[in-house]
């Protein structure tokens, strides 16, 4: 095709001598949403980073509008009109939202910046993406989802020819996703080429035109999304099909309450949170961005100091000491793997064993056992890594998330609170994780699952608590009648 806006061909890239991209290809037409699909670690983000100049390629050709592009710096890429929302946030925590949106392309005359203009312009973009905070808010004070919205605003504020979105919806809910799709459709009209990466199969069909599938750094094929199905794509991606049926849980013990939360308060963010968790139950938490689900979880485990109410674990009041609660068997998997989940500069093994060192210290740590257990999880979760000693920051996003999951699985806790556990995880691996959750239930453990992915909530949970503006709006039984629409209605407007 000669009229494509972007053509990448025969792209190679290796890290420390390990090839990651092997003759990878991608062709994008103007005005199309081109989906890039592949398992965790397939090389999608790497391909994108080569396009944006964040990495240098080791051979291959990049053409834009038929013109070959040499190796370029991120700044040059931006100038050409390549705008990228990276999978890992690239925001500056101590600068306000509006400055983050325009960093590197500040408004103003000569050397000076015009803060006022920047703020006004920022508000326009923020409104577009549905970010309802003051533009002066510091980015570090935002929730993960809000940060994602800042990234989107930042990307669309560029004058773009090619827009790349690397898992933009992994951390946001339906409402914001819909706004994003509106924006994308607007941009399509301007004949912009859009590359879209996501592991949420459902939305691909909603937004995408064509889809390129990658496996192990290689090009597998390109298909028209209107002519294919989820199963077919999954097969191209992981080489097998994956079932998507509702999980039916017979193990739930309604008489045995393991966790009882009563009138929990947290400053002015949470009001009167009350719920019970039963033995062998998966309790889902749904809600829009900023509804306060994360705060509930953090107050329960003691990562935040609650300002009122009580949390009872097996009929005894829980202290607000996090290490003590972890020892008792209540663990929290953070939604923010970069800030709170992982020590990025440490190895896969060190991250997995970190919460579990007490088990391994007798009194000296037994390295063999550590290696053994790390490799065990690398296998069962199929974490794609060179070895257990690889630094986590060198893993792909989804594989990093698997490390976070591994570290909490290994802790063998009684109550697991998983906050967006499958954020950025591919369909195949998602299934493994669901299976592991089922195993946990079978062992008599209980799970609270916070997720922005309603498909997953409906598939896994026994009951669903829907939150809105710091309160639990309702708790719904997950029976055959429950649909995404019902949950969304409660999340957005409340019960009335």
């Amino acid at each position: 095709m000669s009229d494509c806006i972007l053509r990448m061909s025969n792209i190679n890239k290796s890290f420390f001598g390990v090839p990651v991209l092997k003759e990878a290809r991608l062709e994008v037409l103007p005005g199309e949403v081109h989906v890039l699909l592949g398992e965790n670690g397939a090389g999608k983000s790497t391909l994108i980073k080569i396009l944006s100049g964040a990495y240098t390629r080791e051979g291959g050709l990049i053409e834009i509008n038929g013109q070959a592009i040499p190796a370029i710096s991120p700044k040059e890429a931006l100038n050409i009109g390549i705008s990228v929302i990276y999978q890992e946030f690239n925001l500056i925590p101590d600068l306000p939202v509006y400055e983050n949106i325009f960093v590197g392309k500040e408004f103003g005359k000569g050397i000076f910046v015009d803060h006022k203009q920047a703020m006004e312009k920022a508000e326009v973009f923020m409104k577009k993406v549905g970010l309802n905070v003051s533009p002066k808010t510091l980015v570090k004070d935002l929730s993960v989802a809000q940060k994602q919205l800042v990234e989107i605003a930042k990307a669309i504020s560029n004058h773009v020819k090619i827009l790349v979105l690397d898992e933009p919806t992994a951390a946001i809910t339906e409402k914001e996703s819909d706004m994003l799709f509106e924006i994308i459709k607007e941009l399509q009209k301007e004949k912009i080429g859009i590359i879209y990466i996501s592991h949420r199969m459902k939305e691909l069909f909603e937004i995408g035109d064509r889809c390129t599938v990658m496996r192990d750094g290689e090009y597998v094929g390109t298909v028209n999304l209107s002519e294919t199905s989820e199963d077919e794509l999954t097969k191209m991606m992981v080489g097998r099909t994956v079932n998507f049926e509702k999980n039916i849980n017979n193990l739930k013990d309604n008489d045995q309450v393991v966790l009882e939360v009563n009138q929990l308060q947290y400053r002015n963010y949470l009001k009167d949170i009350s719920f019970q968790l039963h033995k062998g139950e998966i309790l889902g938490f749904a809600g829009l961005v900023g509804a306060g689900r994360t705060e509930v979880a953090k107050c329960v485990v003691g990562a935040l100091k609650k300002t009122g109410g009580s949390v009872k674990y097996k009929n005894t009041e829980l202290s607000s000491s996090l290490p003590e609660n972890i020892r008792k068997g209540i663990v929290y998997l953070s939604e923010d793997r970069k800030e709170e989940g992982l020590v990025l500069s440490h190895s896969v093994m060190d991250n997995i064993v970190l919460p579990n060192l007490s088990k391994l210290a007798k009194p000296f740590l037994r390295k063999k056992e550590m290696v053994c257990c790390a490799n065990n999880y690398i296998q069962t979760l199929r974490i794609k890594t060179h070895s257990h000693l690889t630094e986590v920051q060198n893993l792909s996003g989804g594989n990093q998330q698997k490390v976070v999951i591994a570290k909490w699985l290994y802790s063998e806790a009684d109550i697991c609170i998983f906050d967006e556990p499958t954020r950025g995880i591919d369909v195949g691996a998602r299934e493994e994780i669901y299976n592991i959750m089922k195993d946990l239930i079978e062992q008599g453990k209980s799970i609270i699952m916070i997720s922005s992915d309603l498909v997953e909530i409906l598939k896994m949970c026994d009951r669903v608590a829907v939150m809105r503006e710091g309160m639990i709006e309702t708790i719904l039984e997950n029976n055959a009648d429950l649909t995404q629409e019902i949950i969304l209605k409660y999340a957005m407007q409340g019960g009335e």
Partner: protein
Amino acid sequence: MEIVKKKIDGKLSTLTIYLGLGVIFLVFALTCKILGKNFLTLNNLFNIITQASIISILAIGASLVIVTGGIDLSVGSIVGFIGIFGGLLIKAELPLFLAGILCILAGALFGFANGMLVSYGKVPPFIVTLGAMQVARGLALLINRGQPISGFPKSLGMVMSFKVFGLIPVSVLYVFVFYAIIVVIMGYTKFGRHIYSVGGNINAARLSGVNVKKIIVMVYVLSGIFAAIGGIMLLARLTYADPNAGAGYEMNAIASAVIGGISLSGGKGKIGNTLVGAIILSTLTCGLQIMNVPTYYQTIVTGIVIVSAVFADKKKERQSE
């Protein structure tokens, strides 16, 4: 409502440091009153700022470097080197103005070497500037074989001791002019905002199109230039060049920045407050000396007051836990 409250809180927290300075002033003024000493006189206020002037100029450079997440240990030695270098130039009868320019160039050169090694060489700033500190001190000793220089023309002294309107020491003006400029640069220019972004998240800054290496080099160059200016000021203040001059100044400069709330992890802090930090340090020295507190106690009290001032400043952070 809440937003308003938050705003006031925010303002207050940047005000804590001024409050701290105010309290220190008040305590000294009262104690001195009781002891029958003069503390709160206009002349003494000028003294305090003059005594803070050199450190506060160095502290500008220190702050910039710290905001990018680095550190500059070389400024004290550069002060010493510039004294001898400038001294030799003046002795060779170069016009003061030209000597000044050459000194600033020399300072910029040191800074440039530091910046290149940090940004392109990937050597940690601590090591680079520790090395530069030793090289500059060695050169200060070497180029005049360890000898101090004296006997400068009167005009040199006027560079620092001249009084504007016969009242305000010019050194006080330098401080306010430089700080006014740097506050504008940091707050209202692209360069300033880029410095914050580099320190806040270097990868994000790079991927957003900020030329991070250039920014880092420029910041070290500026630090070198301010060190040179400090060196010239010290030379003029003493009309004497000592190859050992400036030893330990880097620590005072860094301390001023950190007391003023510049975070050593980078990306954060208001540069104007650095001046307050420097003035707090010199107020302490001045006040304790006027009260004739024995030297040993002075050290102890200074240590305790610095920690207490910052401790008070962090009240909010402690509460937010």
